[in-house]
């Protein structure tokens, strides 16, 4: 059956005009901003689409603009789109997404965390996309470090204060710091500052950039840094220093920790990022599924949304099945959002990772953050400003408030170039997002 489906797809690509209209009508055209590398696209097709008992045509594009153009077009209507939260926001703002009425009615027992379900409404009262998979950033530790955990500390609910005490204890025991961050030129340390530290200590990331809470936050980081391996400034991915034993405790993107976990699953434990005074700031890369407005996938008779988009509905049902979602962990290194799928059996070496991802996404203390939207060309500059705050204040001992003000002005100049409402963890309002300067 899969072979036939593939064959039908190939024929549909190669000779669209010659394909009978009825066959065309049965294909679910599925575009995605995710899984664009060839190996990932192949893995998705192999793992998730080959077993689909309908016809689907999956085509990933790195460029959201291409997806927008194809979604707007009428010649080859698009039936389903996958993308990260920011992509969905952009498509919705362009009027290219069809609201999905009562997503909770789609499968009320799937167990989508409230914060993520809320994010998927994109500030409206309607569900605009179906939260599907996620990527995030976690902590990992060599089991040898667990002996030095502060009394009463629970890895699943570790506080930043406990983290610092733990780091100091490991330092003392070994004679040198053994906590590591990916603070090298290609590391993801800016995401830690932006998506984890700021929300945990100030409640948000942009609107609180100059709040009084930043003083204690940066003082905390200065103290923590004394127990961080200075080679962190050269680390880009943490799985290697973990495996080499250079560090015992590390924070990084889950995909950059997985090689160590897979290599020596008994040696490492994985756990959620710590909790600060405001909660557990956590940046989660939500991958959603959405229905474009231009789809021709409409059943003749009116009814609920499932009969309105019958073909897409079938594919969504398949893609969100627990076995498919759980299998995506091994196949593509992304994790299910729905609790149903998170509880599905997975590769034993990945259980602790899947659990940590689940806790981080669904914990009541989690302050959910999403990746910054595509701010013209300024998205990277925005993120790098957070790294500059770190290097100036922690490495160079610059004045916290003066530096915060200077960086705030720079961030505002980026935001002013392409005004955009704030995004999580900041309050999502209609006003252009800016750092308050007064």
């Amino acid at each position, binding site marked *: 059956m899969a072979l036939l489906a593939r064959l039908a797809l190939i024929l549909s690509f190669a000779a669209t005009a010659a394909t009978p209209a009825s066959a065309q009508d049965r294909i679910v055209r599925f575009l995605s901003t995710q899984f664009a590398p060839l190996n990932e696209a192949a893995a998705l097709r192999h793992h998730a689409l080959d077993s689909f008992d309908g016809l689907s045509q999956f085509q990933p594009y790195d460029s959201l603009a291409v997806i927008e153009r194809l979604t707007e077009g009428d010649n080859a209507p698009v039936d389903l789109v996958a993308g990260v939260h920011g992509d969905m926001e952009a498509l919705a703002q362009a009027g290219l997404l069809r609201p999905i009425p009562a997503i909770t009615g789609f499968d009320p027992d799937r167990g989508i965390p409230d914060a993520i379900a809320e994010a998927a409404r994109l500030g409206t009262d309607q569900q605009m996309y179906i939260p599907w998979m996620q990527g995030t950033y976690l902590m990992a530790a060599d089991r040898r470090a667990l002996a030095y955990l502060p009394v009463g500390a629970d890895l699943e609910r570790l506080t930043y204060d406990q983290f610092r005490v733990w780091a100091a204890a490991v330092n003392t025991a070994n004679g040198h710091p053994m906590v590591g961050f990916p603070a090298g030129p290609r590391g993801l340390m800016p995401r830690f500052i932006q998506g984890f530290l700021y929300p945990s200590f100030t409640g948000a990331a942009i609107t609180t950039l100059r709040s009084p809470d930043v003083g204690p936050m940066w003082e905390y980081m200065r103290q923590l840094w004394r127990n961080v*391996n200075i080679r962190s400034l050269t680390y880009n991915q943490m799985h290697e220093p973990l495996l080499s034993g250079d560090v015992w405790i590390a924070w990084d993107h889950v995909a950059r920790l997985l090689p160590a976990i897979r290599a020596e699953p008994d040696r490492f434990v994985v756990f959620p990022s710590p909790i600060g005074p405001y909660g557990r700031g956590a940046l989660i890369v939500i991958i959603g599924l959405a229905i474009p407005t231009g789809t021709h996938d409409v059943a003749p008779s009116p009814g609920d949304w499932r009969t309105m988009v019958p073909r897409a509905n079938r594919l969504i049902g398949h893609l969100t099945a627990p076995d498919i979602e759980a299998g995506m962990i091994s196949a593509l290194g992304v994790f299910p959002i729905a609790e149903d799928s998170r509880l599905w059996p997975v590769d034993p070496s990945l259980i602790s990772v899947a659990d940590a991802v689940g806790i981080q996404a669904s914990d009541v203390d989690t302050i959910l953050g999403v990746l910054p939207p595509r701010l013209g060309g300024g998205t990277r500059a925005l993120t790098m400003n957070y790294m500059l705050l770190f290097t100036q204040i922690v490495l160079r001992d610059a004045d916290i408030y003066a530096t915060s003000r200077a960086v705030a002005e720079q961030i505002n100049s980026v935001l002013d170039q392409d005004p955009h409402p704030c995004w999580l963890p900041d309050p999502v309002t209609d006003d252009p997002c800016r750092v308050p300067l007064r």
Partner: protein
Amino acid sequence: MRDRWTYAGLLIFLCLLAGGGLAGSEILTTMREIESELEITPLEDHRMLAGVIQSVDFLSTSVDAMRVEPTMERTLETRINLDRTIALTDVYLGRMPDHAEQFGRRQASAQELLVQLQNAELAINDTASAQGARLMAVWSRLSDISSTLTDAYLLENTAAVESLEAQSIALRSLRGDLRWVLAVMAGAVAGTGVLLMMQVSTSRARERARALVFKQKAQLEVTLQELRTTQAQLVESEKLAALGGLVAGVAHEVNTPIGITLTAASSLSAESKALRSKAEGGQLRKSEVMGYIDMAVDSTDLMERNCHRAAHLIQSFKQVSVDQVSDERRTFELAPYLEEIVYSLAPTLRRTAVEVAIACPPGLEVDSYPGALSQLITNLVTNSLRHAYDEGDSGKIRIDVDQHKVGWFTINFADDGKGVPEANVPRLFEPFFTTRRGQGGSGLGLHIVHNLVVGRMGGSIRFVPTPGGGATFVIEVPIEAPSSAGEQGNKNNE
């Protein structure tokens, strides 16, 4: 055991980073030569120095990128890389107390290693410079490093070697013989440099190395200070901090007239020698003498014109340095002073149909640098006359002064000329950016204006596109200039 060894012999780093070409066979030969007389042991601290070097490499790359395209993103990247490099260097030198203990026990060996490295660099380049960034400059590619070398001297991370492009440098001792070989290997995936060093001992070399420690430590201090100065420059004027780029631009610009002059002089010299030879042989004809004279006149004319051009460029370049112009600071009334400036431009303006009108509140006194103000207004007017209007065009330039906020005044300088193409706007203040290359434009006028406003007067300048044509520069400066250049920027960023 370790005390027996010093590091004057053989150091091996294998490195992934960029470089240029020393034959692997040459290194092997050298190693074999000294192997027979020297014992080899590995150093412990290698990754730390590799981290420093890797960081310098990233810094160097981002500085280059920033010079080409000075976007906010590239500037941020440079500043972050600079902070990283300074922090790593601080730790490396044992100057960060919180981390000193981490590396303290290895510090001596690491420092001596750097001593070797820098000393070798001095020997190679025969210069006294000890800039840390120049460590990069002496690396050369070892493209054909052999498996023998790999097996013999890579003591760890051997598995990674296969996927790496190994590089090394050979360092000549002060006597000129090839003595030290360095190679750096950085794990491509790990992002952690793995630096493998071999050390060998000779008592004479050991003594020399020790003697150099103090001298080289001082040089490292200079290096660090230079890095910090660079940081200050970046902070002061992020977009235009690439002093190196400026110097390179001058060199590039001056190179052409100097090259022409040199060619003409060489040609004249050759012709003169030929003429003398013929004269001595009694074979000289009148037509040949006349031909020589024509050639000599043309050549000297060419040399004179190009020397003037070079002198003009150098003069302009000197003006870029704020410290060399307009040093006087005093309190003066703005309106009459602006009138004076424009009056001084009357000879230039008379040759055009462009008028300059000034509107400035009477009685506004400022405590600033009148020379700098004069220079910037002159440059702006000259810039407008040169670029905004075609020959014979009439036009009007307005210089409006007002006070929008306490302690500051604003000069709106506007012409009604052709305007600036959108693509050129981001580069307006870049040194050597000109649309009149070859027609007398040096590309330094607006750069000088920027430096005067920001560096000397402590203000800011921005270009504002004018709908329907024309160009407007908005200059905001404090009524009381800061006491030293760059003060404002440093306050905000440090």
